[in-house]
């Protein structure tokens, strides 16, 4: 063991960023929670003793899915713009992300209104209602939280309070948003493709 190696090691002492590690840990915990709701959904598929069934009640939410998945693209675009210091581009891309997220939520709201009023499906109706509303609702709740955070950052940007040094914070928030998107891919496949 020589002295030089140790000193060189110290000079290059770099550790992972706490914000990123923290968010990854949080996402792991969130995933564990979603897994349980997904398992419950799959386990109870077709076990409702009475209708309505997913085949009768659900239709593919194509527009919704396009909105949410493309918002992953716009947020990545926004982060790249911020890294390069282009605040105007950032504001546009970030605003687009928030708008797409809001559209998604509005779409979910419309779907739920239809299910409640036309299909008479509530969480208390049958097992399908119970598991459907809880899984999709838990995801929608995460979109809502993300939307509040996105809007906060958007406001800060519009009031000129966002600085390049906050890039990492914004990136971590984008990580959360990507996670919410990934969960939607799972929810979409489970509820609307496999389960229908």
């Amino acid at each position: 063991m020589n002295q030089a190696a140790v000193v060189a090691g110290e000079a290059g002492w770099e550790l992972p960023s706490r914000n990123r590690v923290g968010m990854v840990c949080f996402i792991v915990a969130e995933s564990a929670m979603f897994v349980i709701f997904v398992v419950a959904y799959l386990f109870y598929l077709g076990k409702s003793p009475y209708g309505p069934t997913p085949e009768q009640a659900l239709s593919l939410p194509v527009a919704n899915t396009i909105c949410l998945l493309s918002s992953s693209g716009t947020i990545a675009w926004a982060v790249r713009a911020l890294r390069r210091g282009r605040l105007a581009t950032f504001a546009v891309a970030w605003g687009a992300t928030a708008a797409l997220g809001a559209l998604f939520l509005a779409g979910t709201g419309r779907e739920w209104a239809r299910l409640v009023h036309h299909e008479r499906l509530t969480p208390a109706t049958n097992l399908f209602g119970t598991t459907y509303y809880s899984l999709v609702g838990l995801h929608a709740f995460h979109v809502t939280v993300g939307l509040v955070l996105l809007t906060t950052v958007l406001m800060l940007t519009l009031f000129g309070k966002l600085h390049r040094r906050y890039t990492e914070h914004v990136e971590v928030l984008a990580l959360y948003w990507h996670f919410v998107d990934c969960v939607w891919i799972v929810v979409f496949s489970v509820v609307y493709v496999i389960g229908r």
Partner: protein
Amino acid sequence: MTGEAAVTTREVEARFWQRLHEWIVTVDHKRLGVMYVLYALLFLLIGGSEALLIRLQLVAPHNTLLAPQTFNRLFTLHGTTMVFFVGMPLIFGFANYLVPLMIGARDMAFPRLNAFSFWMSAFAGLLLYFSFLGAEGLYGAGSAPDVGWFAYAPLTSRAFSRGHSTDYWILSIFLSGVGSIGTAVNIITTVLSRRCPGMTLGKLPLLCWFYVVDSVLVLVGVPPLAAAQLMLLADRFLGAHFFDTQAGGSAVLWQHFFWIFGHPEVYILMIPGWAFASEIIPVFSRKAIFGYPVLVGAVIAIGFVSLSVWAHHMFAVGMSMTANTFFMVATLLVGIPTGIKIFNWIGTMWGGKIRLATPMLFCIAFIGQFLIAGLTGIMLAAVPFNWQLTDSTFVVAHFHFMLVGSLLFTVFAAFYYWFPKVTGRMLDEKLGKLHFWLFLVGFHLTFTVMHIPGLLGMPRRIYTYEPGRGWETLNLVITIGAFFQAAGVACFLVNLVRSLHKGKLAGPDPWDAWTLEWSTSSPPPEYNFAVVPTVRSRRPLWDLKHPEDPDWVYE
């Protein structure tokens, strides 16, 4: 004269409020750590008193000290309290205090999240006990949860659990889960991104390694419970049917969800106990830990395996033979890394200059008791044996060997070992040894004996029993043992309070130890280290004390 006195009283009062304010708004990891531990001790007294009442009721057949309903509430509260409001805050309290000091950091990675997690857990504990006052609700039924700590469906449904006591139980466990997840995120992040220069993962103190594995288990184990509690809330308030068997729901699904949390939870509680032992045994054997990489590997292996053993709690429920076999084999696998660890500790003591101070006494007792707990664990993992003994006091004896005989013993060891660091004063050795022997004798009177009525067929959770089954004397001995343990804990508490003011001054490094927390003063200043330390081996203080023969030459 009177005026002066009034001024001083007011000053004293003002100083009191100021100090209280400082503690309540603190984000300092050391203060939060102390608060976690004090809070756990408070609940240890509450949960311990519940255990004593349970034992008093069972001291003789046909005893009428407690009503059956009260008995149900007591074992529910005892289990819930000890797991969520004693075990969890104890391990997180020690983690909070020790992890930053051991890795040479100023604080946890997210100090405010840390405070948030603590207050969530504290609030959750209050909520559980608030059910005594608030749960009457409009029904006038039930004053505390009485559904058992694993709250099987459909007992928890509206029809069978009237009133709001079960709701308080659900909310309190959900909130405590939120706090635990926050702390787990914090511990992992702290270890990964707050290490002092030179402290690579291979030089990390074992305690920190163990806590990282522990926190990963919290991250994947606790959210399923939170999810299941949300489902139960939906069942109770929105008329959902998750666990409603009349609408096609499954009561067994709850058991799966609960134990997907419940089994990792056992390891979540136990891993910190191993962590304490792995720090204390080397110091009191005057040898470096034997097989550091193997020990780390063993704990990681246990972490993995522990995620696929949950259904061994459900052998009696009637799963398929494939499932039974899988979970039996997976559970038996745990024995391998566990055995490795025991060899590590014995290998460390082998040929060492062992100092039999109180922390070491507790650790030695721990090794033996942990071995027995593991052996009865292997017995219970065998499906046919499990069918015979499921829900008997044999099972109760087994897991108390784990949680009391292993975890609590190492926690006591940790108290005696790190109290000087936290307060600057030593705990009294004489009282400490009295505590150890009282507790050891009491523990074995209670829990070693408790295996036997289980083998004779005594079920757990019964509020009384018939005479003439050969259980009377055994139960009498078990109850006597419980009071020995209570006397031991009383010695411990007296020791804590007395030593706080009258203990021998400790100095920075009373045990001649090797990890970084002993390089700063006792108690450590708010900033922990005046200069950020640099480490070159697993025992930085050894290197400092023995520049002629440093560890990093060999590692």
